[in-house]
C-alpha cells in the first residue's frame, strides 16, 4: 500500500502513522452536550466502502493527512493536507 503525500509524493505506507477516523477533526465546543462528546470520543462508523481517516507522515514532511479510501477495494481515492482543509486553523 502506498499513499501519495501532497508534499512528498508517492511514499510507502510504513512512513505513515495511522491515527483514526476523521471524526477527530470535529472536536465539540466546550459547552457541547455529553452526547456530542460521546460521539467524538467513542462512536465510529465502520463502513464497507468509502471512509476517511487521519494519517501522520512521520518519516517525511511531518504533516497530518486526510486519506479517503475504500475499505472494500483498498483503493486510495484522495490524500489531502489537514492543514489545507476548510476550517483548518491557521
Amino acid at each position, binding site marked *: 500500500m502506498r499513499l501519495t503525500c501532497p508534499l512528498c509524493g508517492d511514499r510507502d505506507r510504513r512512513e505513515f502513522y495511522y491515527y483514526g477516523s476523521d471524526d477527530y477533526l470535529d472536536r465539540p465546543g466546550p459547552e457541547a452536550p455529553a452526547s456530542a462528546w460521546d460521539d467524538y470520543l467513542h462512536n465510529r462508523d465502520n463502513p464497507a466502502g468509502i471512509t476517511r481517516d487521519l494519517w501522520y507522515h512521520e*518519516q517525511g514532511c511531518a504533516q497530518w493527512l486526510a486519506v479517503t479510501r475504500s475499505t472494500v477495494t483498498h483503493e486510495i481515492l484522495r490524500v489531502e493536507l489537514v492543514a489545507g482543509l476548510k476550517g483548518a486553523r491557521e
Partner: protein
Amino acid sequence: MPDLIAKPALDAAPVTRGGATLALLDSGPITSIALFPGGEKAASKGLKTIGLTFPGPGTWVAKDAARIVWTGREQAFLIGAPAPALDGAAVTDQSDGWAGFGLSGPGAEAVLARLVPLDLRAAAFPVGRAARAALNHMSLVLLRTGPEAFELYTFRSMARTAWHELVEAMEKLEARAAVKG
C-alpha cells in the same frame, strides 16, 4: 559567556568502498526558516538580499556557498550562510542539531537504495531535488547535488549510527561486486 568550541559530530576520515565515497560535511550554519501563516512574501524579500528564494516542496536552490532546502510544509533550512534579516518567519539556529554527510561516486545511488525507500535514480530524483525521508529508521534530509553526488543530513545525536549504516551498505556492495568478479 564562555567560548564554545565547535566540534564535528564524529571523528571519521572519508571512506571509499563499493564505488562510493562517504565524508563528513562542514556545512557551516544551518538555520530553520519556518513561515508564519501568509509570511512567504515577507520572508522571500529577506532571502532575496542573499540571492535566494523560498524553495518549493522537494527542491533546493543555491547561490554561491548558501543553499536553501525545503524541509517541510512552509519550512526550509538555510545552509552554509548566516541568515539575513527577514520577516514573516520564525528563524532559529539549528547548526548544532544536524550532522551532514556527503556521499558521491558511481555507487552512491546503489548505497542509498539499501537505506532510503525512495526512487533516487537521476530520472526520478534529479539534481536540485530534496526530500524528507528515512535513512533506515532515522529522520533524513536528502539533497541531490550532482549526477553522482548526494548530501545527507540526520539528527546529530544519530551521526555515529548513520555513518555506521552507510559504511556497512558500502562494504556489502563492495563484497557483492567482488563475488561477481
